[in-house]
């Protein structure tokens, strides 16, 4: 029994580490791909140099980030088979389909068109080249869709039957791809991805603007590109921050219906309460099944779960009793790790919404004209003043902190994303597929503990090393800012001239 537990623990740690790590890069890749595509569209339409600079600059950061996202994604395609072969056999009929679709529809799109985009600046006509980055962006979103459909099926299995061989069999692909859980999770994940990208843009643009201001940068296109980026990042963060909150609320309600235990755990709500309060802070004693310290807002949890302030919300102890009645002794306990769920839920919301709040404040403070005395307005190529009211600028202390916070904000959504996934995946435990298969039953039966230790160690060390390399590279490029590159002098044609065989490539590895 102990060894079986060790197998499960190792497999879970490996999946957790590799997946959370992978997901640090995913949201940034999705949003930066769309933002870069948007900026390049602006350049193609207006021809303005600042958009070209911005496209090149964010495009480079996108590529550094995308590379690690792609690299760490390779493991994801295979580790279900490696460590979770029992799971793979049980659900392959259903779970494999969206995975294969993801590869066929999304990965080919991304990988092929990113190659065309990177190397195609002087080979492809402007508009076709622009089309390539849009294809990449669409590919990233499609990829998210399919993998989230697969994950949603684990959270809330639909469109299946259990076959004669005891395995889950697909009966309705439409349900798997378009069930409510999938749609809401996609909405929540994509809005959060744009919140992440927006905050990233805000942080780096703020850093660059301050730096350019200090070094008295004179290249107006460079300054313009960062000023535009700052505003774009702020707008994106605010819009999608709001979207993340709305979609998160919707998802919460879906989860209250589909996985009451997860949401009771998220609240450390031990006993069913009517109306149920929302805890700002709580510390539970798991053995006694109650909280020892708690600070809460009355009725708010009822509202989050059911849209009114007075309905009952089931508590952990009651859900546990219900699940035991329903599933018997399939698992020793139907309770997930409560502190992880409770704090994961709060860190997700807290960090995500902090970025939203900072961006909302930033959007106001850096406004261009609205409720702003003319002498405080700054041109397109200047550092914006942080104006609290029509005539009042932020004081030097707050001013300094406002810019610092703008830079720090880019890290917050990354923390929020990670905790969101840790919450949603650990909150489903003991289930791998909710109600159908426990995580303990999902593990590969013949993989040895030695093999698991080897892979866990290698992945962890490799990923740590790659994190150091990636972050350093990001910092170097973010600090360097937009470069002096110029757009191709004339719009390339597809047939291409054959006379310039001696010309160096516009871009080469």
């Amino acid at each position, binding site marked *: 029994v102990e060894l079986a537990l060790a197998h499960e623990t190792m497999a879970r740690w490996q999946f957790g580490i590799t997946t959370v790590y992978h997901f640090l890069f995913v949201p940034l890749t999705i949003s930066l791909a769309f933002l870069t595509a948007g900026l390049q569209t602006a350049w193609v339409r207006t021809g303005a140099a600042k958009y070209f600079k911005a496209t090149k600059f964010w495009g480079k950061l996108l590529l550094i980030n995308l590379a690690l996202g792609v*690299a760490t994604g390779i493991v994801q395609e295979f580790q279900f088979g490696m460590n979770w072969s029992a799971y793979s056999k049980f659900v*392959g009929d259903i779970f494999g*389909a969206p995975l294969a679709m993801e590869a066929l529809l999304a990965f080919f799109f991304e990988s092929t068109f990113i190659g065309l985009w990177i190397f195609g600046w002087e*080979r492809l006509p402007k508009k076709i080249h622009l089309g390539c980055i849009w294809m990449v962006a669409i590919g990233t979103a499609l990829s998210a869709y399919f993998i989230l459909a697969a994950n949603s099926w684990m959270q809330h299995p639909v469109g299946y039957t259990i076959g004669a061989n005891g*395995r889950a069999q697909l009966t309705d692909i439409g349900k798997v791809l378009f069930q409510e859980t999938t749609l809401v999770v996609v909405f929540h994940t994509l809005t959060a991805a744009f919140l992440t990208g927006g905050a990233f843009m805000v942080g780096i643009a703020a850093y660059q603007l301050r730096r350019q201001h200090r070094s008295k940068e004179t290249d107006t296109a460079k300054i313009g590109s960062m000023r535009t980026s700052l505003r774009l990042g702020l707008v994106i963060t605010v819009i999608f921050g709001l979207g993340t909150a709305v979609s998160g609320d919707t998802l919460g309600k879906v989860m209250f219906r589909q996985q009451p235990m997860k949401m009771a755990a998220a609240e450390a709500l031990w006993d069913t309460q009517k109306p149920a309060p929302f805890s700002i802070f709580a510390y539970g004693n798991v053995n006694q099944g109650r909280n020892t310290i708690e600070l809460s807002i009355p009725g708010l949890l009822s509202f989050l779960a059911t849209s009114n302030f007075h309905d009952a919300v089931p508590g952990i102890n009651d859900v546990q009793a219900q699940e035991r009645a329903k599933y018997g002794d399939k698992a020793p306990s139907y309770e997930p790790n409560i502190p992880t769920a409770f704090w994961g839920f709060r860190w997700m919301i807290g960090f995500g919404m902090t970025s939203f709040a900072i961006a909302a404040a930033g959007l106001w403070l850096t406004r261009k004209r609205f409720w702003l005395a003319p002498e405080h307005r700054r041109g397109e190529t200047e550092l914006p003043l942080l104006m609290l009211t029509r005539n009042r600028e932020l004081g030097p202390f707050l001013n300094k902190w406002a810019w610092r916070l703008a830079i720090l904000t880019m890290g917050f959504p990354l923390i929020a994303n990670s905790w969101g996934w840790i919450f949603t995946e650990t909150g489903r435990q003991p289930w791998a597929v909710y109600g159908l298969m426990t995580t303990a039953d999902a593990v590969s039966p*013949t*993989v040895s503990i030695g093999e698991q230790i080897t892979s866990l160690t290698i992945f962890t060390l490799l990923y740590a090393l790659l994190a150091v390399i990636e972050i350093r*590279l990001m910092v170097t490029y973010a600090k360097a800012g937009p470069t002096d590159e110029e757009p191709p002098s004339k719009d390339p044609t597809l047939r291409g001239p054959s006379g310039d*065989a001696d010309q160096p490539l516009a871009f*080469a590895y």
Partner: protein
Amino acid sequence: MQLHDVWFVLIAVLWTGYFFLEGFDFGVGILTKLLARDEPERRVLINTIGPVWDGNEVWLLTAGGATFAAFPAWYATLFSGFYLPLLAILVCLIVRVLAFEYRGKRSDPQWKRNWEHAIFWTSLLPAFLWGVAFANIVHGVKINAAGDYAGNVLDLLNPYALLGGLVTLSLFTFHGTVFVALKTLGDIRTRARTLARTLGLVTAVLALAFLIWTQTSSGDGWSLAAAVIAVVALLGALALNQLGREGWAFIFSGLTIVAAVAMLFLALFPDVMPSSLDPAWSLTVSNASSSHYTLKVMTWVAGIMTPVVLVYQSWTYWVFRKRIGVRNIPAH
């Protein structure tokens, strides 16, 4: 022909696509030490596959995903059974992505050298290990009554499998050399052709031994036909390379890979992973496959998307059709 037979063919097609495409870019990676003499030449090599290697690699992910969808038991047993070799391949592929993307991101020569070493090793190891893996699949491994792999990692390193590894390693390197001769200009192109001759002969000897071994242990009439085509195509590629017909030589080295993979899958059918313990425990196209409905859904998706992918990937090769040489390599 039942749907799971169709899917067996489709999985074979995906692996063929993967080995055809990533075959030459593994080869190019290996040539960075075997053929290139200095940094500009290494960059010429890397840039012949610069815009396409990422798309090539996706054929593997698709093969993996499609196996999961169409033959879950095959996917489960293969990747849990070949755990450590697969781990090594995955580590290589991860590092390889970054080696291509990050090598040029700093001007520090040591940084570049490190990533160049990485490109070489992470191309060489998977090129070898895929051969080991496929030889084991065809030859049969210790699969127990539950359909799980019951051997250990040393069982996978048997003489037949190691020979299989050497075949893929030399074949991919040869394929890569022919590709380089087709895609480069100047001195490196001439040297690639010379090297291709040597590599082609080595490959011919190894491949012949491997194909005969495979044919006698698990072949039938169809696999024999494929094996003959593979050998003829390889000799054809050698001859065409000698004649300086680089495009045709590449088509024939590609055909060698196609026929060799076809031979392996023909030798395998109707098993997908034969058991060396008891033939009754073998995973087959029927006992490892998904339900009819899933296969039908996936047939529609694959039937529509695979041609589309082929069209836009081919277009990429057309866009970057120009040969490159040292003089085309920019300073940065």
